[in-house]
């Protein structure tokens, strides 16, 4: 089998056993990317060939002296382009940061780099992670490897497409309202959003600070656990990161049953607007879960219908403030020939940001304005608490929740670009877990009649990633969806 088809776990085994070298891995992926990237456009920036090969050589040369390998050593990874990489430009998919080269590494990069992986490049995203299709990237959309006329999902669409198209073995994404899970579902790969606070946000360019969370996009659940092991943990540089113990998550991906687990099926996730084809696949999956010993129980999360409105007030309010720093003064894009300060701000931001980012900044600014704050932002915070309480109550009875990831399979490029509301609705099933800060995973559970992947979502209690991963692994082992790979047509 070609090297690039291997999972992270398989590649790791071959590298650790000495069967293959870092140099071979690097060359295999460089070749694969050169063949596939022109069609998929998963990356915004690629590590230059010589640099990558030199890095691989360093690993191969150093192996004897180190006498041990790390789980991610020599593993070819893609990094979403809103995670700061020292010395490598970090654009956030925006003209505003087109030439921005961070002088520092995000905490997750510091952790990764200690294990000496091969960072292949920075993956595409909707501008500042605002979107569900990568169509809002200033550098053009990525394509769905299963059908290039369709979106790869977003905002971590580049990462999901890169993993699905074997352009990296695993990738990092970030999830604010579904930006890891939704593209993973679109591209038929695994996307895992940990509990808010599990993974440091230091160096993740903020979209909505109270929701943003970094997580892995991988080919299998085991791979997600391996990646998560490398990411997890308290970071003194992030005041919102959790000071909590964590287990070895690869141990969760061992058991093939879910006996004694109660799986809740929230009614509100199976109503109008859900594509019948998706509904059917999710029902099949529920039966599989039951067959593995899970106790299935219908539950209700009454505040669900308010989640989208709540999310689009809180996320945009935070974004309007988080994006104020892009003013053309210190770094990033500055419009030319402004006569005075106000004009410089105005022109730089008008020209530097795309339409979706501007729309959200305006929405958020409005929600925080004097006279509107109580009606919008404060009310949204109150509803967010209600949504959290819904989950708290349900998790008294069940260990997990099962649902679709997205109301439909990946839609066509351009289909919803002119209709922001329709675009926002594609996050309807992923947003509630974001608002409640819960761990949630998306994994493949079938293909549509047109051959597009469909995703299954499992949500768990805060900080119980091990249970989510265990059930996801058991489901993955009980089915064969992971072996279905896209054929990339030229």
């Amino acid at each position, binding site marked *: 089998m070609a090297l690039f088809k291997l999972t992270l776990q398989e590649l790791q085994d071959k590298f650790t056993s000495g069967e293959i070298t870092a140099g071979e891995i690097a060359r295999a992926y460089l070749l694969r990317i050169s063949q596939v990237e022109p069609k998929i456009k998963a990356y915004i920036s690629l590590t230059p060939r010589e640099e990558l090969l030199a890095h691989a050589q360093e690993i191969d040369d150093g192996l004897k002296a180190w006498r041990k390998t790390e789980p991610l050593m020599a593993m070819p990874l893609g990094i979403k382009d809103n995670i700061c990489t020292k010395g490598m430009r970090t654009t956030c998919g925006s003209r505003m940061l087109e030439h921005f080269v961070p002088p520092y590494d995000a905490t997750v990069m510091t952790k990764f780099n200690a294990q000496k992986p091969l960072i292949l490049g920075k993956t595409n995203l909707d501008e500042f992670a605002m979107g569900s299709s990568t169509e809002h990237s200033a550098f053009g959309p990525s394509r769905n490897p299963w059908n290039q006329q369709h979106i790869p999902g977003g905002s971590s669409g580049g990462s999901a497409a890169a993993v699905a198209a074997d352009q990296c073995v695993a990738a990092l994404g970030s999830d604010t309202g579904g930006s890891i899970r939704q593209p993973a579902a679109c591209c038929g790969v695994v996307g895992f959003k940990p509990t808010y606070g599990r993974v440091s*946000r230091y160096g993740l360019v903020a979209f909505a600070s109270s929701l943003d969370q970094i997580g892995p996009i991988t080919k299998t659940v085991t791979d997600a656990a391996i990646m998560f092991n490398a990411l997890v943990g308290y970071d003194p540089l992030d005041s*919102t990161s959790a000071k909590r113990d964590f287990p070895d998550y690869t141990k969760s991906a061992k058991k093939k049953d879910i006996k004694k687990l109660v799986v809740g099926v929230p009614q509100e996730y199976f109503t109008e607007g859900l594509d019948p084809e998706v509904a059917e696949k999710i029902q099949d999956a529920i039966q599989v879960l039951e067959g593995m010993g899970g106790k299935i129980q219908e539950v209700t999360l009454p505040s669900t219908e308010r989640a989208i409105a709540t999310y689009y007030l809180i996320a945009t309010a935070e974004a309007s403030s988080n994006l104020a720093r892009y003013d053309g*003064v210190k770094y990033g894009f500055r419009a030319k020939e402004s006569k005075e300060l106000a004009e410089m701000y105005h022109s730089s931001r008008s020209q530097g940001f795309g339409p979706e980012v501007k729309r959200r900044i305006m929405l958020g600014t409005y929600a925080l304005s004097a006279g509107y704050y109580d009606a919008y932002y404060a009310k949204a915070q109150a509803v967010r608490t209600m949504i959290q309480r819904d989950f708290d109550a349900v998790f008294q009875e069940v260990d997990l929740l099962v649902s679709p990831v997205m109301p439909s399979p990946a839609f066509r490029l351009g289909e919803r670009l002119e209709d922001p509301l329709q675009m926002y609705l594609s996050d309807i099933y992923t947003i509630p877990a974001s608002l409640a800060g819960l761990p949630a995973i998306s994994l493949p559970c079938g293909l549509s009649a047109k051959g597009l992947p469909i995703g299954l979502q499992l949500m768990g209690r805060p900080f119980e990633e091990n249970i989510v991963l265990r059930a996801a692994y058991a489901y993955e082992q009980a089915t064969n969806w992971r072996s279905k790979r896209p054929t990339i047509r030229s």
Partner: protein
Amino acid sequence: MTYEPVIGVEVHAQLQTQTKLFCSCPTSFGLPPNTQVCPVCLGLPGSLPVLNQRAVEMAVRTGLALHCELTLTNQFSRKNYFYPDLPKGYQISQYDLPICGPGWLEISVNGKRKRVRIMRAHLEEDAGKNVHEEGADDSHVDLNRAGTPLLEIVTEPDLYSSDEVDAYLKTLRDLLVYLDVCDGNMEQGSFRCEPNVSIRPKGHEALGTKVELKNINSFRYAKDALEYEISRQTEVLDEGGVVQQETRLWNVNKGQTAVMRSKEGAHDYRYFPDPDLLPVILDSELIEELEHTIPELPSVRLQRFMQDYRLSEYDAAILTDSKGLADYFECCVKLFPHPKTVSNWVTGELIRELNTSDTSPADAPMSPQRLAELLQLVDSGTVSLKAARELFSELYATGMSAEQLVKEKGLVQVSDEGQLGVIVDEVLVAHSAQVEQYHGGKEAVLGFLVGQVMKASKGKANPGKVNELLKRSLAP
């Protein structure tokens, strides 16, 4: 019509932490532009703030000293506005949940005591500085100061004259310096004040329209600007006009205030809780611990100095004006228990030397022990008061032992009756005419004779002793 001014004051006190409020950059002053910066205080994409615990402790200590209700769960909020010296496009400040709630500070104006209510005190980060060189067509931004911790202390509108404001500002500054939380330097901007003032017909309850004053960087300017503003508003009202709600800048050169921004131009700061920072929870153990670190405060110490040492309010006020001086005084009094004498020397000679050499009492080369030693020598008659005064500068500068220096200079005072008796006899013989005048009832001649003895002893004779011996010898 007679009007009464009503004044409230906002003070921004820079906290004396080693590092900034949300990162570990140093807070040093006066370094080359943009050298005390990191991704956090530069507001680089992806950077996050981490609260400096020292700043919280300083705010709590100040709150305790101001008798404030502490907000046990307080919170940081973002104040959103655009300005080049504000790297994130928002300032991290506190809004609806400030760390210190209502409290009070007692001040004394012309001998009258008065409590000024504190509305709140909250933590916030400072901005950087815009630098614009004369004649240049571009501006520069220096972010060294960005992120420096400030405590904003706000009063209720409880002050009714520029004198009261002056007293409040000085009392507050002394307090902060005593607490070691702020260096109180107005010129360097570590103690900035922004008064707001309105006037109302005397006897009326309702407040007039208030005007905020900015660009005040000395106590003098605060007084001048307020007096100008009060008369300006009085004139406006007397002419039948209306005072506008606005912010005005004090122009030192013109001695006037001018409009900076009107109410319509006021910002909507869109405050909201900063999602990057957790609420700050003050636990009772920490508060108790910090309570023990609060030194005796200036007003309390002043009262104690008057009572325990029987000093005048004037002297006590000078001594307690700075913690260092008061400490110096008390240390000295312990070794030489004559408070009035020590007070005279400290408020006279010592302060003169400190001012000349621009030194703080704690750094004075002459320790309180050395001063006590000198006073002991005067008291025992070993050295004359005059000689002690003359030697003071040298003793101060060198930090030498007075006893040693007096010996070296041969200034030990002669009090021995045998030695002095010889000189007295010689003088009486040499000035028989004056002796006769004395016996004739002209007692003033005694002074002349004392002078002669002093001269003959080259100034070393103990004048008291000489007086005594002369009287005895001249007695019929």
